[in-house]
């Protein structure tokens, strides 16, 4: 177990600089290819961390169901531009099941929902950004059981986290995709211009995510907690069967 973690971290630490080095050697500055490769490489340790816990079929199926619900929620609100509850649902899954499960749900939901919306060079970036949203939510709130005592405060904190998480983390990660895939020359000015033009979109997206947290976090968390208690799943170190 331990050795595999170390080797995966080492692989990534060696792979990313190697990719960067090759990227600078390629003629014509292939930012697009290099950045996509690096994004895929950063996702590897997250998948390994989940795999390390030897997930049961029912855990995988539960994550698949949550990813499907998230993907459908994105498709259901497709008529309002940039208003998508998908990250909200991913964050709720992360809060209920932990950081690694949240990351996996995010990547799967992004990949699956792009079958409705069209795959593209942005797919790995979306997978990474949505997955990171779920990871962050799980990291911050999965173990915080004390907050449950004050439901109103908990709801307010989650709503605020949904908004801030999108505007400060997930949105800028998605903007990085624009920077690396469309820019021919990387400059700070160009990057700042991209972030600035992405800001209103991120705010709309953040409002959607905050609203999702406000309306759905209680019912969905109740369902997922019930599932966890009833079947004893998603707890590290315990085997349900």
């Amino acid at each position: 177990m331990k050795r595999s973690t170390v080797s995966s971290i080492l692989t990534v630490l060696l792979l990313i600089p190697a990719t960067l080095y090759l990227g600078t050697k390629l003629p014509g500055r292939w930012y697009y290819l290099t950045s996509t490769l690096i994004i895929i490489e950063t996702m590897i340790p997250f998948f390994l961390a989940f795999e390390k816990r030897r997930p049961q079929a029912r855990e995988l199926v539960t994550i698949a169901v949550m990813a499907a619900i998230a993907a459908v929620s994105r498709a259901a609100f497709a008529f309002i531009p940039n208003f998508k509850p998908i990250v909200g649902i991913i964050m709720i899954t992360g809060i209920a099941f932990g950081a690694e499960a949240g990351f996996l749900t995010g990547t799967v939901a992004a990949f699956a929902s792009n079958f409705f919306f069209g795959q593209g060079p942005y797919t790995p970036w979306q997978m990474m950004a949505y997955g990171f949203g779920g990871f962050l939510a799980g990291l911050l709130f999965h173990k915080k059981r004390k907050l449950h005592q004050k439901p109103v405060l908990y709801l307010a904190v989650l709503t605020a986290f949904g908004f801030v998480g999108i505007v400060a983390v997930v949105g800028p990660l998605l903007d990085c995709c624009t920077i690396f895939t469309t820019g021919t020359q990387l400059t700070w000015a160009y990057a700042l211009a991209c972030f600035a033009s992405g800001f209103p979109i991120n705010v709309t997206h953040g409002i959607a995510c905050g609203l999702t947290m406000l309306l759905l976090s209680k019912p969905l968390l109740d369902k997922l907690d019930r599932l966890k208690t009833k079947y004893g799943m998603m707890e590290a170190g315990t085997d349900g069967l």
Partner: protein
Amino acid sequence: MGFECYHPAIGLIYFAAVIAATICFQQPVFLAISFLCAFAYSVKRNGRRALLFDLCLIPLILLFAGFYSGYHHFGVTVLDRNFIGNRMTLESLLYGLTLGTVTAAVFMWMSCVFSIFTADKVVYLFGRVSPKLSLFLSIVLRMVPRLKVQAKKVSTARKAIGRGAGQGSFFRRLSNGIKLLSILITWLLESMATISDSMRSRGYGRKGRTAFSIYRFDSRDRSVVIGIFTCLTLLAMAVLLGQTGMDFDPRLHMNPITPLSCLFYLGYGVLCLLPLGLEVTGELRFAHLRKSI
């Protein structure tokens, strides 16, 4: 005696090849061959519903071409200027048309794939690669039909107590609909957990478990494989000779059509019509034999 009676691996190779070719070959003759064959085959497989669906796709292709040329202005042949003063070019219009046709053809091929690849074939093909994956797939593929049945049950029961999604005032309906959704999500999550537990207890996902299958690779399958790969070899030659591509930017350009390229068109046509031809000849022979009883 349809194409679904052949070995699942043949279906996989065939559809992967045809869909990849449809996406990659933008030369108009190749595209037209794929489009027409997909049209004919999907109508043969799925009957009147497929005919309606395919006919609806044609105006959508034209709409997409208009939309695309309204946003992209590459090319040298200017047809007109639109109302905000941007150039409408022949090249972007034709490229939009090509993209739309490719998408429509892929949709039609996919409708054939769905009618041929039933869940047992998917599980059979992937169960060889990984037993866990096949367990996972068999649960997930059954999810949508099971959900439909359960949704019908729950909504009927709720209608009986006056809480149906179509009963009451607007807000009542909304809240009833949301309740229905909530019930279904809870049911889906818990039943999935139960199902995967019970399937695991029956030994799914273990290494030594063999899946029941009625597929064997016989001489008929072998001859079809030889046919498919002959056509694919011809297509590979066409790709090497640059016969399958087309340039749209900055001007329309494709390699000239020679007598040899007619051979490639023939090969592609045979490949695309292969399942349709097999089914039709099979049915004709069956009818003929039946007459002679």
